[in-house]
């Protein structure tokens, strides 16, 4: 019901205003109306006329018969996002079939006394330099209708792993052995096919799930880290994704307004959870995990009324993070959802406080559906994170509503995400970001502020305590030396979490873990020249 309402909210305005917006769909820098050096502000009439004139010049490709196949490819096929963030797909396919891509994010972190980046003596007395991301991969564009990409997360491969053990305090027997810091090194690997129906694409492989807006590429983020919402569920999973323009059924003119994505995947997480042909869906880790096979469904619908990212004179679709450099206003509104019948894996949030474990916002299913059956019957007396015949499974439904808007350098984005279901802990989360891009020669300075909140009943005691609320402020400055290809980010993060203990009141207290982030990023695509818009 709610989904229906949301759907109508976003689709009905489109139907009403579609005709008016049609003049803006292909508006781009190449055809944008120049603002005169004025003396006099241009009259509305003259702007209108110029707009009409420009409109005739727009390369508005519709079918492959009207124009050459190459042009059709650039304007239509390339417009489909193979993976969010790859705004630089090749223009000349014959010469650029293979792209090598790489990204390094190196950062320095300095925190207050109680953060993990401090020895506890005085605030900000040390700087921890580390790699946030070292990614390397390739994109291969096959014969115009198929392609593949793979990316390796090198920063996860170079961490020295060590074995941790935990013994039973009473008997001394070994209870838990795990390889610390072992993380999946395969970041993303998938193949895609362009299908002739609804200009659609089918992806197979380890895919980026289409649920949250923030799950677009980290290369184009405005803050060094994603929001709390990101720490609820894994971002990648193995399965299939179908991407299509639903409006292409009605009219090819309006098709780019709405992009729909739907994915069905294992629900067992990406390579971080151990995947491959030898570890699959039915992996139970020597019987310690229940055998759960429920797939995860994710979907997302985005509505971009003013078009997407313009490159080489073509609208190549929405690429989150690139819109801040566009001259005209850009708006993207998205709704997304997720549904998992048996929640097998969750993500967690590391608050970087010494002595505090990762915080879990959702409760995953650790016992078989319907409860564990023993010779003496089923045990109802279990912790409320475990299943019983009455609490059959830990299911999760999530929905999100988000937007990004930019005009004349002003930037605003936000999202609201809510989870329901047995595994959800009634978690809800939201964030808002504002910024202002100041052009400086060919570069941009961008003061940015973000406020983010996550709340729920994380400790499952049927009420929201003050420990069930995390808030943080990000205040900082982005310096885009060459857009997202080379940028510096300096941020101060004020975190309000109640992870400490107050000696007087014996209640929780806010710990001092505010941090400075200084992050440098360089990205390359082989064959990617300086982007012209």
């Amino acid at each position: 019901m709610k989904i229906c309402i949301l759907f109508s909210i976003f689709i009905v305005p489109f139907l009403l205003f579609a005709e008016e917006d049609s003049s803006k769909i292909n508006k781009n820098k190449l055809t944008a109306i120049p603002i005169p050096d004025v003396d006099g502000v241009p009259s509305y009439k003259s702007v209108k006329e110029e707009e009409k004139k420009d409109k005739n010049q727009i390369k508005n490709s519709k079918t492959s018969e009207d124009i050459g196949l190459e042009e059709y490819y650039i304007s239509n096929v390339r417009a489909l996002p193979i993976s969010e963030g790859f705004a630089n797909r090749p223009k000349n396919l014959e010469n650029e079939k293979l792209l090598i891509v790489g990204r390094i994010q190196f950062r320095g972190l300095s925190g207050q006394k109680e953060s993990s980046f401090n020895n506890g003596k005085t605030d900000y007395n040390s700087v921890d330099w580390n790699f946030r991301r070292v990614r390397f991969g390739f994109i291969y564009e096959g014969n115009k209708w198929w392609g593949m990409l793979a990316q390796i997360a090198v920063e996860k491969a170079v961490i020295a792993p060590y074995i941790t053990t935990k013994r039973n305090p009473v008997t001394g027997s070994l209870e838990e052995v795990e390889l610390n810091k072992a993380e999946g090194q395969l970041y993303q690997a998938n193949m895609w096919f362009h299908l002739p129906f609804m200009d659609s694409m089918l992806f197979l492989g380890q895919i980026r799930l289409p649920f949250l807006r923030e799950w677009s590429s980290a290369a184009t983020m405005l803050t060094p880290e994603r929001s709390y919402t990101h720490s609820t569920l894994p971002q990648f999973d193995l399965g299939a994704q179908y991407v299509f323009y639903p409006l292409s059924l009605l009219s090819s003119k309006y098709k780019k307004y709405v992009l729909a994505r739907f994915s069905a995947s294992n629900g067992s997480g990406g390579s971080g959870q151990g995947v491959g042909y030898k570890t699959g869906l039915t992996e139970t880790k020597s019987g310690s995990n229940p055998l759960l096979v429920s797939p995860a469904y994710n979907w997302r619908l985005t509505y971009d009324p003013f078009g997407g990212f313009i490159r080489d004179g073509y609208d190549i679709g929405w690429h989150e993070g690139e819109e801040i450099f566009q001259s005209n206003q850009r708006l993207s509104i998205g709704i997304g959802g997720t549904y998992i019948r048996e929640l097998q894996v969750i993500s967690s949030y590391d608050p970087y406080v010494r002595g505090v474990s990762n915080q879990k916002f959702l409760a995953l299913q650790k016992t078989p559906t319907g409860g564990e059956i023993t010779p003496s019957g089923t045990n109802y007396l279990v912790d409320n994170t475990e299943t019983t015949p009455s609490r059959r499974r830990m299911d999760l439904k999530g929905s999100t509503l988000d937007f990004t808007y930019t005009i004349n350098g002003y930037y605003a984005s936000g999202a609201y995400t809510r989870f329901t279901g047995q595994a959800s802990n009634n978690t809800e989360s939201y964030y808002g970001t504002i910024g202002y891009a100041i052009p400086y020669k060919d570069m941009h300075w961008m003061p940015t502020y973000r406020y983010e909140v996550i709340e729920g009943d994380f400790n499952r005691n049927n009420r929201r305590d003050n420990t069930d609320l995390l808030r943080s402020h990000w205040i900082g400055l982005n310096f885009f030396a060459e857009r997202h290809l080379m940028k510096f980010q300096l941020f101060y993060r004020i975190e309000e979490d109640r992870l400490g203990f107050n000696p007087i009141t014996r209640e929780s207290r806010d710990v001092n873990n505010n941090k400075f982030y200084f992050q440098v990023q360089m990205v390359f695509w082989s064959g990617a020249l300086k982007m012209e818009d």
Partner: protein
Amino acid sequence: MKHKNNHPMKHELRKKNIKIFLISILYFITLQFYNCSKDIITDEEQFLLYTLLSQNSGNSTTYSIVEINLRDFNSYEGKCLDTFLGISAGAYFNTQYPPESRNTSTQKVFESNENCSYWGFKGGVENRIDGRTVSFLSYSCGASTFLCNDKAIKEAGYD
């Protein structure tokens, strides 16, 4: 026609707002640093510290204090305090946990000679009363991190 982002007129429009943005951000940062002064000892802390230091811990061998709370009919969350420096754990237990609060239906507290990891807790956040001399570590267990150890739950008195 090539477009430039630093077009004169656009630049003018933006210049007006740059100052406001920068000032507001500076304001936020300064505000935060004013709130940072958490090392100043409050009157309550001073009083507690005085009470604790003046108590004779005698030959108490208490090393840790474990508090287990019932959050559902069979689900628990807990706290543990250990590694007391400057004060004795026994004195803190006697002062901060009056006998009537030690054994209620939803909260049970006990003192022990073992450390918190013996009772299944992990990590440990350092909490200071004085900022320099008096401190102890606090641990927690529950659904948001890891579940409380059965041994601690039994020892507290839940069956």
